[in-house]
């Protein structure tokens, strides 16, 4: 069973559960905002991407409309400016660049070229069982470029309260 099909079976794209009114991104270039990378339709458009502004770091805050479990995350970005070191924080509200290093990330990952092409990063599932909001800190990028660019961010997981029973049954079969 390849990883991709596991995702398809048990995990859904959490895009539907994102609380768009609370989505924030610090240090984004106003012409290239987070919506370009996160939202359906925008993220599939290759012309639109998220870009950082003053320097190469980005702090993305994504609240959800309900509690979710996060399984994996997928980034698509260019070779040079795509993100490299990424730290994820669950349920930390309103972080800033100054205190992002004060907290231990729930998980962190160093993205490889493969990841940037669309291979999802499987996360420490146990750390993301009860996620109300997710903060993604992009610390640097692949090529140490001035700004970081992200074309797509997809979050895979399941919801806690409204678990689709049909999906559950399928998992149990395995």
């Amino acid at each position, binding site marked *: 069973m390849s990883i991709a099909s596991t995702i398809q079976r048990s995990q859904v794209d959490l895009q539907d559960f994102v609380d768009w009114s609370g989505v924030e991104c*610090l*240090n984004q270039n106003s012409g290239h905002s987070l919506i370009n990378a996160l939202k359906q339709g925008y993220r599939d458009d290759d012309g639109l991407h998220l870009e950082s502004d*003053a*320097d190469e770091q980005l702090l993305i805050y994504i609240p959800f409309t309900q509690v979710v479990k996060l399984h994996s995350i997928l980034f698509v970005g260019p070779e040079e400016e795509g993100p490299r070191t990424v730290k994820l924080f669950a349920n930390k*509200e309103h972080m*800033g*660049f*100054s205190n992002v290093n004060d907290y231990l990330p729930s998980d962190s990952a160093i993205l490889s070229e493969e990841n940037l092409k669309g291979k999802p990063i499987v996360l420490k599932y146990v750390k993301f069982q009860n996620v109300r909001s997710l903060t993604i800190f992009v610390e640097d990028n692949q090529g140490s470029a001035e700004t970081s660019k992200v074309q797509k961010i997809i979050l895979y997981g399941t919801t806690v309260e409204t678990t689709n029973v049909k999906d559950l049954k399928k998992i149990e079969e395995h």
Partner: protein
Amino acid sequence: MVLESTMICIDNSEWMRNGDYSPSRFQAQADAVNLICGAKTQVTGEEHVGILTMAGKGVRVLVTPTTDLGKIWVACTVKFHPIFRGYYFLCSLFHFSGLEIGGEMNITAGIQVAQLALKHRQNKKQQQRIIVFAGSPVTYDKKALEAIGRKLKKNSVALDVVDFGDEEDGKAEKLDALIASVNNNESSHIVHVPAGTDALSDHTNFHWDGEGGSGFTAAAAAAGGMSGFDFGVDPNLDPELALALRISMEEERARQEAAAKKATEDASKQETDGKQASSSRDVGMAEAVSSSHNDLDKKDDQMDDETSLLQQAVAMSMDKLAPVPSSSMVIADADMSDAVDQDLALALQMSIEDSAKDSSTDTEVNKVLGDQSLMSSILASLPGVNPDDPSVKELLGSLQRQSELLQPQDKENEDESGKKEEKQ
């Protein structure tokens, strides 16, 4: 309307003793601060404002962001009497919070502390803004300031700088560079206020023109262009009244600008607004009327006293220094027939000459004067002028050629209102 949390950084260094802004730099600064705080807290009750001082013994936060105007006023006006060194800070909060003048301004530390104070604001959803009054020389170099600016931009903090006082050693450039590095979508501004008797507070209001979503569009319309205080000594003696008058005037102006763009569908509204505004001004001060004429010029020309206003407006646009006693508006009717002939001719003359001028007063004057039907109705109501007089017709004709702005509707509406006046 975006809610904002603002920290105001006051310069209370030795340089503030200078008297080149009346009454003293420090006082002018305090007035401007009071005005800002008043405007922010009164428009919505939700905007938070805090104050810190940058000089003195070090950067000190006097008031953390709050909607309580009283706290802020106490902090700005009461002189400081330190009783116990140990209770320095406590005393300042409760009774003796005040501003001592002395020391040197530390702009970078001030901004950093302001950023910290904003970070710990109660309502995290509010946008962050820092307003810096820079009245003394800036000792830091451009690079340091730019680094600070970038950090502010990264944390999406907007910055406004009021540059006044000594102009030295590239201070203006340094501050411009600072704003350039912070600026994101025109949310940060800088205004340079040259020395003179102009109130600092007027210029401070002026630089809010570009501030998007700040929530007080009423107060934000340009108050610049007025010399001295708007309403006599209001801001010193009675800040609330000054603010109320200013807001009503700005609202009036905003409405008039909207009306000027649409045609005269708004004309009837304008008349009632103009009358209300004029009554509030009659309560007040002489100088208020001079500025009110700038407003009224724009669209209230259908009113009874319009021609005398036109005359004054034209004189105004020439030298901007004609304080007219408020009673003139009341007895305008009586004056009109006497003064109007020569003044009308003069006004027509000037509008022909000045049609290329940029000032909106003139274009508006042109608009009205060029409206033939309106002019003929006015002239018809005057005892000495015969509208069929060839010389008058000629003048009107030449005016009409210039004013291509009017739509046919204008003429009809103005015609009707002109006729109404005649009956009155």
